[in-house]
Structures are given as structure tokens and as C-alpha cells.
């Protein structure tokens, strides 16, 4: 018997077809992977099942009976639980309240049963006790948690729904390996209980580690479903991208050594919020990688270099002259660029035209006062083209694009006027594989043109494939530098886990 079946589901947002024709069949007791490029419609499909998006067409069957999911409450009643890609947590409420928010335990009709709340939530927190960090307790307001801890809370919240059908829309994007491993253990347990699980991730290794079957979705249409055992990463990618050939599949071979081009940026004994006593130099044409488990100070360092907020002490020299960054603006005018993977927070100017999203840095660096659309477009178009950005027109709002293309717009804003140093803070988070390949090809080209690039990535393969040198961070400082043949996955892990 099929537990959940979708056929011919579609959804349009204005002119954007988010989902053209979604089909999906999930059995009881399987982990069903959903994979597709950015903007292919995965989240839309999930939200339709979870009731938070109203489909235009199509049918949903549960246990072979047609149902209407009229809203999240209806979905809950139908036995559907979901982990939202963008999370659904209340910042100021405690972890326990968040986990049980959909169904707060009651005392009488009107009151919250505090004892039951603490007890029940405690059980879910205990599931991740080993990997969540000590500061994740039942009473902690979610706002005080790190990104990975929030994702764990959202996972607990989905688990607490006890639903027979559980949907996880990119639940691991902020988690580290140990957290992912623990999560997968739990998933396997649930599968063995006979629950149906939908799992979405852009990380190929995870998909092959946990999935039973995989459904590929492209441009809002379901392409096909195969069992994981019968397929390979390369085959999945071929399905995802259609007939296109020659895509970058993660290779373990490190890239050719960098060309020496003189020191561009040097950092001495820099300390700031989240990192301390960091020293290194980057040469022109070099891609310096920052590695290690996430949250060990890599992002904090990049942000400090960019002035958001500035470092407390230490010295930075850019092209031989001392660099003082008080805020991003002064960093930008000194020739720095910073691309963040958290585009929702750091990048996208929501609701505004694509043009206005590409040009703020250009306007600042050229001290423009007037914003003539023609002149701005002339600057913007080449940068967008270099990134293969798909968009209908510069005057369309950026929200009409998929997440991946939005990220490309944000990246393009830094490339109109060439910076001297490019800071990349996990720039590909949530970007699909082909976009990643485009991006890294471009980054390499920029390096060859003489830019100094510092790259932090939460994906090992990305670092190993692209960085000429890797500084491994742990506990806020650099533990090891990997250069040349040392750049191996083993060394990376060894250094990263050393102090832990």
C-alpha cells in the first residue's frame, strides 16, 4: 500500500511556475530522497503536502484515499509532520515550547501543562544530547542558539509530531558530521518503525548514506524514481540536469598549485568575537581555504575582515598598507568583497528589482549619486552573464527567482567592479550542483586574474577541490595549515577533530 501519493500537483506564483507536474509515491518504512537543482520545486512540493501552500491542481492520496490538505493543521491531523527548510521556530520561546508548539500539552481546557511540557520535550532533547552542545537545554530561548542547534530543534519539533509521514526539507544544511550521523541513526530507527520519510539534501554523500529510493525533480517536473542501490551519484546528476554533459562531480584530487603573485592580504594576530590570534597571508592569485567543523571562527574571521563587526585587536595589511575596516562600507571602498551563504540575512534585498540588488556595491565604489537604469544595467549584465544567472528582466523583483539564482544575483553585485580580495563565507549553501560548478570555475578564473580569495566552505569536497592552501580552524584559532599534497580529507578531519 502506498502511504502518500501525489499526482500531477502544480503551483504557480504569478508568472513563475514553481511546480509544473509533481508526482511522488512514498511507501511505509522507507527514506525517500527528493533531489533537484535550486528552484526545481522541492520545497514547494513539500509545502503543498504540509498544507502551507495551496496547490493549483493535482491530487494527494494518503493510504490510497484522496485528501484535501487545507492547511498545516489539517496536515497534522492527516499524520504529516514537516521540517521546514527556513525553519518554523519562535525566537523568544524556549526550546521545549518550540518543540511542542503545534500541540502544547494542556491542563484543563485553557492552561499549559508545564510538567508535561518539560518532560516530553526533554525526551526529544535527550535524543541529541551527545551532539547538540551543552547550552541546548529545555529552557533556553531559541534565539540564543546557533544555527545548527536551531536546525536540531526544528528536527525535534518534526519528530514530536509523531506523524507517520515525516518530511525533512534540507534538515542537514547547517549540521556537522556528528550531528548528521546522529540524525541518520534516528531516521533509520523511524524507518524501521514503518514510518515514511521524505529527505531533501544537496549533499550527495548524505543521500547515498540514508536513502532507500530517490526521486529526481527538474524544473518543477518529476523526472523519475529509482532505488538508491541501483544508481550512482553520476547517474543521479545526469537525471537532475538532463542531457547536459561534463559536470563537475566532486573529485578527491587537489587542484594545481597556485601561481605566486605577491602578497595581497596579510593578517597578524587578529582577534575578535569568536576567533583569536589568527595570522596568515594570501597571495594574489591564490585561493586560501578555511576548513574545520563549522562555527569554529571561520565565518567570524571573514566578517571581521569585512568590518561586521571589526576585530578587537591585531593588524591587517592590504597590498602593503595597513587596513582599517570599521564597517562593510570602509571594507568595500578598500577593495574587499564578501559573499555570504546566508543570503536571506546578508544578501537579498527582498521585494526589490534585480537591478537594485546587483548595483549597491557598484554605486558605492563609484560614488554614484544618480541611478540611471541604462548605465547600471550596462555594468550589471556582464556580471550576471558570467554567472549564468537565469532571470527574465532586470526590473523583475528578485523574489521571482529561485534561491540559487538569487544567490547568483548577490554574488554578481561584488563582481561588477573587480575587488582585490574576495571573502567567500560558505557561498554555495543551498546552491545546486551545476551552479556550484559555474561558480567555482568563475572563482578560479578570478584568481588567475590576480584576485586573492579566501574561501570558507562547510563542504569538504569544495575546499579540497578548490583551495590551494587550507587553514584548519578549531575553537576559534588556526590549528593546522594544509598545503600541497597534505590537502587530504584525512588530514582535514584529523585537524578538525583534534581538540574535540
Amino acid at each position, binding site marked *: 500500500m502506498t502511504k502518500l501519493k501525489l499526482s500531477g500537483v502544480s503551483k504557480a506564483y504569478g508568472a513563475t511556475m514553481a511546480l509544473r507536474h509533481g508526482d511522488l509515491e512514498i511507501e511505509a518504512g522507507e527514506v525517500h530522497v527528493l533531489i533537484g537543482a535550486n528552484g526545481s520545486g522541492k520545497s514547494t512540493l513539500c509545502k503543498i503536502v*504540509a498544507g502551507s501552500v495551496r496547490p493549483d491542481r493535482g491530487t494527494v492520496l494518503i493510504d490510497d484515499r484522496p485528501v484535501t490538505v487545507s492547511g498545516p493543521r489539517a496536515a497534522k491531523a492527516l499524520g504529516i509532520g514537516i521540517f521546514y527548510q527556513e525553519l518554523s521556530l*519562535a525566537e523568544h*520561546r524556549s526550546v521545549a515550547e518550540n518543540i511542542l508548539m503545534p500541540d502544547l500539552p494542556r491542563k484543563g481546557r*485553557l492552561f499549559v501543562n508545564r510538567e508535561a511540557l518539560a518532560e516530553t520535550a526533554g525526551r526529544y532533547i535527550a535524543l541529541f544530547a551527545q551532539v547538540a552542545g551543552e*547550552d541546548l537545554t529545555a529552557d533556553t530561548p531559541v534565539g540564543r542558539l546557533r544555527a545548527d542547534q536551531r536546525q536540531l530543534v526544528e528536527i525535534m519539533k518534526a519528530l514530536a509530531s509523531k506523524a507517520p509521514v515525516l518530511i525533512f526539507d534540507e534538515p542537514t544544511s547547517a549540521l*556537522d558530521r*556528528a550531528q548528521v550521523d546522529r540524525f541518520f541513526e534516528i531516521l533509520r530507527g523511524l524507518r524501521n518503525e514503518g514510518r515514511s520519510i521524505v529527505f531533501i539534501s544537496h549533499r550527495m554523500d548524505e543521500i547515498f548514506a540514508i536513502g532507500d529510493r530517490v526521486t529526481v525533480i527538474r524544473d518543477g517536473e518529476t523526472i523519475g524514481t529509482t532505488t538508491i542501490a541501483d544508481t550512482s551519484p553520476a547517474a543521479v546528476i545526469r537525471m537532475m540536469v538532463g542531457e547536459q554533459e561534463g559536470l563537475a562531480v566532486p573529485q578527491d584530487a587537489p587542484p594545481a598549485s597556485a601561481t605566486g603573485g605577491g602578497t595581497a592580504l596579510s593578517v597578524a594576530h587578529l582577534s575578535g568575537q*569568536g576567533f583569536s590570534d589568527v595570522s596568515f597571508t594570501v597571495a594574489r592569485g591564490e585561493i586560501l581555504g578555511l576548513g574545520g567543523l563549522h562555527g569554529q571562527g571561520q565565518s567570524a574571521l571573514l566578517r571581521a575582515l569585512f568590518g561586521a563587526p571589526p576585530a578587537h585587536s591585531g593588524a591587517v595589511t592590504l597590498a602593503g598598507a595597513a587596513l582599517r575596516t570599521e564597517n562593510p562600507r570602509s571594507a568595500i571602498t578598500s577593495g574587499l568583497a564578501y559573499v555570504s551563504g546566508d543570503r536571506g540575512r546578508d544578501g537579498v534585498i527582498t521585494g526589490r528589482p534585480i537591478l537594485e540588488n546587483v548595483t549597491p556595491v557598484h554605486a558605492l565604489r563609484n560614488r554614484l549619486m544618480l541611478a540611471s537604469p541604462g548605465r547600471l544595467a550596462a555594468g550589471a549584465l556582464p556580471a550576471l552573464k558570467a554567472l549564468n544567472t537565469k532571470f527574465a528582466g532586470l526590473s523583475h523583483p528578485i523574489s521571482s527567482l529561485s534561491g540559487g539564482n538569487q544567490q547568483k544575483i548577490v554574488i554578481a553585485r561584488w563582481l561588477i567592479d573587480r575587488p582585490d580580495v574576495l571573502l567567500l563565507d560558505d557561498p554555495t549553501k543551498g546552491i545546486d550542483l551545476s551552479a556550484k560548478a559555474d561558480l567555482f570555475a568563475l572563482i578560479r578564473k578570478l584568481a588567475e586574474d590576480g584576485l586573492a580569495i579566501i574561501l570558507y566552505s562547510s563542504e569538504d569536497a569544495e575546499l579540497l577541490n578548490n583551495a590551494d592552501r587550507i587553514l584548519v580552524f578549531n575553537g576559534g584559532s588556526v590549528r593546522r595549515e594544509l598545503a600541497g599534497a597534505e590537502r587530504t580529507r584525512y588530514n582535514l578531519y584529523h585537524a578538525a577533530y583534534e581538540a574535540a
Partner: protein
Amino acid sequence: MTATPSIAREGRGGFGALLDRFPFLPAIVILIVLLVLNGLFEPNSLSFRSLTGLVRTYMALMLLAVAQTYVVYAADIDLSVGAIASLVNVTIIVLMQHLGGGGLSVVAALGVGVLVGLACGLVNGFVVAALRLQAIVATFATSIFFTGLALTILPVAGMPAPTAFWRTYGGSFFGIPFVFYCVAVLAVLLYLLARSRLATQLLAVGDGQQAAFQSGLPVTAIRIGGYALCGVFAALAAFCITGDTASGDPLVGAKMTLFSVAAVVLGGSALSGGFGTVVGSVIAALIIGLINALVFFAGTPSHWQNFVQGLAILAALMVGILVSRRGRA
């Protein structure tokens, strides 16, 4: 192997943790400072009689501030609380008059008053949450409507309340002024409401409507619930106004609306929703009262009184916000 050795993070030291639990601490400190200052300038102002008078005068604002707090929990705002209070005030006055002013008629009028407050709250909730109009402008529009209604019911200020009614409010039982019984009942009510599912859900909605909706909370119903609660408390405020003024006035509450918003902020609640306490709002209402008294007792020339009051309230708002943020950041 532990995968996430948490690196040095800002500890939430003693003060921060304390503020997390008791966001109204800065308000209490301001309150105490004001009491001391009042006592210095006019020792009589700390007499039992004067303090009773203070509570009697500002009981209505306390209740309006509480009313406002519940909608602010959900990141909404209600600019009609004052108008609701006025409407309830004239409704109960007219009813008591028509029903003869006896004990039973008072009870019946108060019952109707609560229902009127509730109905106004539901109207607000409907236009803001169900029709999705912007709260600031929509509740301003309803406030005009409610004022019109109040003017219809009692076109001229002045119909008197039955003497027994205001004698009770202004009187004492077993040596304890009636208002202090009101305060006690309010405390119990607030305690119960703090444990209610609605309060938690309102706060969750205030933290993020979309997230709350996706979590399966009935967001619209919850917000309407917040406004309904607000309406009921505005009605209770109207009872106190009526007790203290012994008469009907279709415009009596109008100026209190903005003070209720100020009190909510002063009390440590965030206007952006998701965080706050009603106790803070109650204290803040008293702070506003004490500031007004202090400005006079300090001998401020009459033309400067409004200005100094304005400055003092602005300063208190700033201090309150700065202190609570320093603790929470």
C-alpha cells in the same frame, strides 16, 4: 566524540539571566527611584492615603496597559483601547441609569460592559487578523467608529453613576481600600493568564506569524483571541474609570491610548512582539503616574509641567529600553 565544542560564547551572566526571567526589573528600579524622589519633595505623597489615591487614579491605565500588552505579544497593536474604554464607560452608565441604579442593575450593567468590550475586541481582531488590515491604521479607524458609537449612546459627558457604585470603588472594606482588592484580583487573573495556552501562543505568533502558521497554530484565531482579551481588559479599565469619575464621558479614555503603548514599552515588552510581561506594563502605568506627580511636587512652574513630564517619560522609555537590551543582548 563531541562534534560541536562550543567556543567561547557570551555567557548569559547573572543580570542577563535575571532580566530574561523578570524583564520588568528596570521598571521596578525606576518605580522605586520615583517613589523616593516623590517622598523627598513631598513626604505626604508616600502616605497611605496618597498611595491609595495613586492606585485609584492609575488603576484604569494599568488595566489598559495590560490590555495593550496582550495584543503587543502577538506583534499587533490596538489604538482603540481608549475608545473601547470610553464606549464601555458610557454603556454601563446609561444602563445603570435606565435600570434604576440598584445593586442588581450594577451587576447587569457590568456584565453588559464586559460583553461590549469583548465585542469591540472581536471587531478589532476581525479587521486586523481576518481581513488582514494593518493594525495601526485599522484600529485607529475602529477607534473613530467606537467613539461615534459612544457619542450616540451618551452625547454629552456627565450622566452620574449611582452613588453606591463609586462609593464602593472609593471605599474601604475591613480597613483595606477597595482598589487593593482589585489589584489582588488582577494579580490572580494575570497569573492564570500567564499560564494559559493563549498567552504562549500569542507570543509564538508575535515571534513569527509565518512560522507559527506553519507550525499548525490557528494564527488568525489566536490574534483575534488577543484582541478579545484586550477588549475585555479595556472594559475592566472602564469600570475603574467609572468608579473613579462616577460619571459617563464619551471621550474619557481617548488620551490614554498612547499612554498604554508607552506603558507597554516601559514595562519591558517588545513592540515587535514575541516577548514581554504584563506585570511590567502594570508597573509602568504607575511610573507614568508618579512622573506626573513628581513634576508637580518638585515645584515645576505650571507652564513647564507638560514639557518636563514629556522629557521625563521619554527619558524613562530610553533608560528602560537601554537597560533591558544591555541585559538581554
